[in-house]
């Protein structure tokens, strides 16, 4: 475990741009509220850290929350919509809409650095460039078992050092 944090990169320019938009937004409280909404398939991660929450904007109906799917067929998106709605209604918001946008497409560069740390803590190798390191022992002696794992966003690996199988959150550029 000693060196496993060494490969976690600094924030990407893509994430920095998202963060900058959030910081100047007058909807800071809404963003903070939505930090409680997690990805149902990756409960370690908030939709903000995952990059699925794109932006909170003004709209004719009051508030517009823009989200984007990780992969085209991501079945979690419908649940995420519901969870956003529940979260906002719970805080007393009524006039809002949730819009799905695919352009520009989601990439792993939109994820926060915190997301990488949380994935690794959850036993999933984060999407960092270079060799895929075992989240259990930190070894980079790993081998691809299958290009897909339990969800479209992950691949299945095995560690040759500690023999543990694990998921790798794929790099999508």
């Amino acid at each position, binding site marked *: 475990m000693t060196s496993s944090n060494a490969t976690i990169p600094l924030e990407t320019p893509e994430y920095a741009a998202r963060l900058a938009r959030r910081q100047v937004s007058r909807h800071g409280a809404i963003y903070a509220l939505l930090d409680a909404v997690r990805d149902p398939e990756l409960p370690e991660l908030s939709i903000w850290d995952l990059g699925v929450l794109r932006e909170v904007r003004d709209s004719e109906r009051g508030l517009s929350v823009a989200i984007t799917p990780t992969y*085209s067929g991501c079945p979690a998106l419908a649940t995420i919509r519901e969870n956003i709605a529940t979260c906002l209604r719970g805080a007393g918001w009524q006039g809002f809409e949730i819009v799905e946008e695919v*352009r520009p497409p989601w990439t792993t560069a939109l994820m926060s650095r915190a997301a990488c740390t949380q994935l690794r803590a959850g036993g999933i190798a984060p999407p960092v460039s270079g060799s895929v390191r075992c989240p259990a022992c930190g070894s980079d002696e790993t081998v691809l078992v299958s*290009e897909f794992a339990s969800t479209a966003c992950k691949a299945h690996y095995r560690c040759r050092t500690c023999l543990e199988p694990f998921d790798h959150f794929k790099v999508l550029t």
Partner: protein
Amino acid sequence: MSLLAAVVGLGDDALVLGQRLSAWCGKSPWLEEDLAMANTALDFLGRARLLYGYAEQLGGCDEDAYAFQRDARAFTNLLIYELPCADFALACARQLLVDAFDVLHLEKLCDSADANLAGIAAKAHKEARYHRRRSAAWLVRLGDGTAESHCRMQKAMEDVWGYHAELFAPVEAEIGLVEKGVLPDRAALRPQWLAAVSATLDEATLELPSADWQVDGGRRGLHTEHLAPMLAEMQHLHRSHPGARW
């Protein structure tokens, strides 16, 4: 051809292939492959939904009506996507041909004069690159595998080969949209596609099929005998219980 018809045609391609791929879940060579097939299927189903969603904005019907309330004659997918794959080798052969096409076609479609199509293409292109890597790896694994797997892979490639021509043959009505820069010129993609496929076949120790037959008709709603039974299964629940909700 109207933009709407073109968008629905691309949606049908994705839906029909997604349905075919999802049938492998539970029947693949092993568990990991079940998951991989199902996840690849999801990418195509997701792409179909994006395209049908855009079709609805263009004045078409909703996604469920496109998927579940049309008969085979109204589907305009290309024939290669509807082929049943009782043999895993055939599934791998078809997938390589369409993934290699997808990567080239979607890359061009990213520059479409139509911003919505360009956006959907940009999303799908990222997935297509991954699909192609996977299908090329399977081709090499089976082609350059045992004598039996080599033989079956070669036969599967011969069996599917005649369906590839339709990928590169724009129907007459599509040409107007090509001229407007909305759709890529399919025919122009063929040399690059052939080079990519040949390289993978070579690596897989397989011969480029010499088949001189070819079929078409999908975009005009003229299908093989395989589409209607697939739709009957896919549409059964929706047609038996219209408007049912989970």
